[in-house]
């Protein structure tokens, strides 16, 4: 089976400043999230695939058909991709049915047999009664679903989603995200989802590409990028990992300010950076084990709290604690680590 999207050595830039520096990516099927901070080039990557930005080098194939090779490229309208921009960008002068039917040929729109527009509405879990509403009469989440239905109607093999949920409020974001993922799977379309929200990337995607400064740092499953990051930057960007200096002596353990800790993956001996996840750190008082520290400040979330502490040896760490046992700022506590940690050979 041909991959839905193949990218090789993709480079792009504006006026001499490189934005994409040689990207490689294969999307077989399912949802691939491009995760990175704003300005890392993820939107440029998406727009290169869509055909709105002309890359300076590299190759892009969609469903086995080459659409970009070096400076030669197929026009955007002939790539047969679904595209869902931020805010959905529904056509304000057309009703929902006309929006969804926009990319269909006349015959498909008039239809014989099951109506494509109705099928699409059902696919994105919207009541068919919405068909004759206008975009301004819909909620933000409904607009995004209609935008997806419009993108899926011409049966593309690949759908591009550009921060599609960023303008929705938190409760709507999760529901809409799940509905979009279900609809994409039901339609059998692969998707490239650009986002800066790690929760969104990890929960919705089958594959996550972590991007920084125009390059991919790691491309792997959500669990792999979270549990076994290959770069310290991936570890600190995903979740609240604190980075500490340490030293590996035997390849199995690492010694750092938090004591001697087991390694999750083997690491060469020498100076290393150790990544410790916030949920691995236990903050307790009135116990003897663990390293002494002082509480700096606290963010209380309800289901849990993030506590920042300073070790007596000087390092600052972020720890997640249950809501029931939150210390007060300035309190003396002891910090210990649960489970194994990841270490990266120190560079420079």
């Amino acid at each position, binding site marked *: 089976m041909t991959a839905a999207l193949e990218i090789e050595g993709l480079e792009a830039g504006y006026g001499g400043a490189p934005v994409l520096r040689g990207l490689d990516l294969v999307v077989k099927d399912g949802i691939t999230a491009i995760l990175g901070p704003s300005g890392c080039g993820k939107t440029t990557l998406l727009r290169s695939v*869509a*055909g*709105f930005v002309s890359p300076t080098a590299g190759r892009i194939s969609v469903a086995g058909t080459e659409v970009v090779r070096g400076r030669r490229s197929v026009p*955007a*309208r*002939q*790539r*047969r*991709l*679904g*595209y*869902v*921009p*931020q*805010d*959905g*960008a*529904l*056509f*304000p*002068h057309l009703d929902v049915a006309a929006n969804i039917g*926009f*990319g269909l040929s006349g015959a498909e729109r008039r239809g014989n047999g099951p109506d494509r527009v109705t099928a699409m509405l059902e696919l994105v879990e919207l009541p068919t009664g919405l068909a004759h509403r*206008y*975009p*301004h009469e819909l909620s*933000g989440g409904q*607009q995004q679903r209609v*935008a997806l239905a*419009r*993108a899926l109607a*011409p049966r593309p093999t690949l759908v*591009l989603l550009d921060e599609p949920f960023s*303008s929705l409020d938190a409760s709507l974001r999760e529901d809409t995200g799940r509905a979009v993922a279900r609809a994409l799977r039901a339609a059998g379309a692969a998707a490239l989802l650009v986002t800066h929200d790690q929760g969104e990337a990890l929960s919705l995607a089958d594959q996550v590409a972590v991007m920084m400064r125009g390059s991919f740092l790691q491309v792997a499953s959500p669990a792999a990028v979270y549990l076994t990051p290959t770069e310290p930057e991936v570890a600190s960007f995903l979740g609240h990992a604190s980075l500490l200096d340490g030293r590996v002596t035997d390849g199995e353990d690492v010694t750092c300010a938090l004591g001697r800790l087991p390694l999750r993956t083997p690491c060469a001996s020498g100076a290393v950076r150790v990544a410790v996840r916030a949920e691995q750190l236990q903050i307790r008082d009135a116990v003897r084990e663990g390293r002494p520290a002082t509480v700096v400040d606290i963010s209380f979330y309800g289901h849990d709290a993030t506590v920042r502490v300073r070790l007596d040896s000087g390092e600052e760490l972020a720890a997640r604690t249950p809501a029931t046992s939150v210390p007060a700022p300035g309190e003396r506590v002891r910090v210990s680590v649960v489970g194994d940690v990841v270490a990266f050979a120190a560079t420079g």
Partner: protein
Amino acid sequence: MAGGASPLLLLVGLAVAVLALVPLGYVVTTTAELGRQEAVDFLWRPRIGELLWNTVRLLVAGVVASTVLGVAGAWVVERTDVPARGWWHAVLCAPLAVPAFVNGYGWVSTTHAVQSFPGAVMVVTLSYYPLVYLPTVAALRRLDPAVEEVATSLGRSGWSVFTRVTLPAISPAVLGGALLVGLHLLAEYGALQLLNYPTLTTAILQQYATVFNGPEATLLALVLVTFCLLLLGLELLVRGRRRRARVGSGSSGVPVRVALGRYRPLVLAALTAVALWALAVPLYALTRWLVRGTSASLDVGELAATAGTTLWLALLGGLTATAVAVPVVWLAVRHRGLLTTAIERSVYTASAMPGIVIALALVTVSIRVVPTLYQTVLVLLLGYTILFLPRAVVSVRSTFELVPPGLEEVARNLGCSGPAVARRVTLPLVLPGLAAATALVSLAVATELTATLLLAPLGTNTLATQFWSDASSIQYGAAAPYALALIVLSVPSTWILGSLSLRTTR
């Protein structure tokens, strides 16, 4: 009905509406004084049929040609990779600085071939297409490019994206521009008189010239006003069905520009042709007459005095009309209702009246009601206000629609009083729009001809009236310096308008 507007504001709005309706009231009452059989006998003549046919075909052809030219120019500048985009924008705005009658003078003093229907259509189109071009450029700038990108990704060609997505989205701006062009064509006198193309308006002027205040001219004016009302009704009907609510906040990025490719030379040639036709021909004619006319001894002192008077009147007229437009727009936008919409629409009725009808209405009313005002600058300013209020309202309105009521509510919540909200929030936001409105009206006042001829106090000469007295007596050389001064005076406001259309909020 007017949703909580303060009585004082409503009173001001009603006063403006009454003022704007004075010319219409004048036409209607004078017509009513006329016997019915007399009116039918006058209107049911082949001569009137010919005038109607001339007016209608000029209206239709002129509006269509201006719209096509204005929209095509805006699309090329905003949505294609045409080189030197900023320069072409300036070139396409520039004809606004050449008054239609100066343009007509330039053409007619070059070739008499323009004294025909196609010639008339060409000259008025070249003079008035910027009225469509400017709002269209602004609307294209505001349009979220993502909407066009989605249409492209759904397999639509450039043309199909334009007609099915872009055009519907910018249609309110295009329609507004087309309406303005139509109203201008109905009221145009100077250019058409020079081109020897008789319409209802030029006929009215001839009637007035022969029998000062004759009933026949008033009857013709009534027919003309009917046209204007039909046009307004049509625009209201079409605009009313449009849905233009923008969905979401939209992150207006840089639009993807259509690559012209092998059409580039063709597009550049077309742009150059517009520049040559609309600018080079009248300017060349002007220069030729200027060089030839210097022998006829130019009175520099008189020219300077006339220019000073024009400048002063233009600024005063611009400020007055804008100040009067604000309460009207405020009522229509914030207190939408039957009454407030009626007030807003009533100001438009004056715009299809030729300047001379408004002027004569004011002359008659001032002589009958307040004789001391007759032959004063105040009456002239009232005339300018009635005449140019529609333009001021159109641009002030588009500005006020950009200020969400939420901002004002926030300011009130922060403890601002009503006037403080206006001063600290609303005014700074709408000031660029108000400046545009003032510039637009000043430009129009500086080049206004017929109303000034009638209403200006004795001895008050403007560049336009001085130009007209020379040009209409075929003293082309003597008219040239005044024409040049008119153009020079119009350049700054044209420049303001051109740059404002590019600086819409992104």
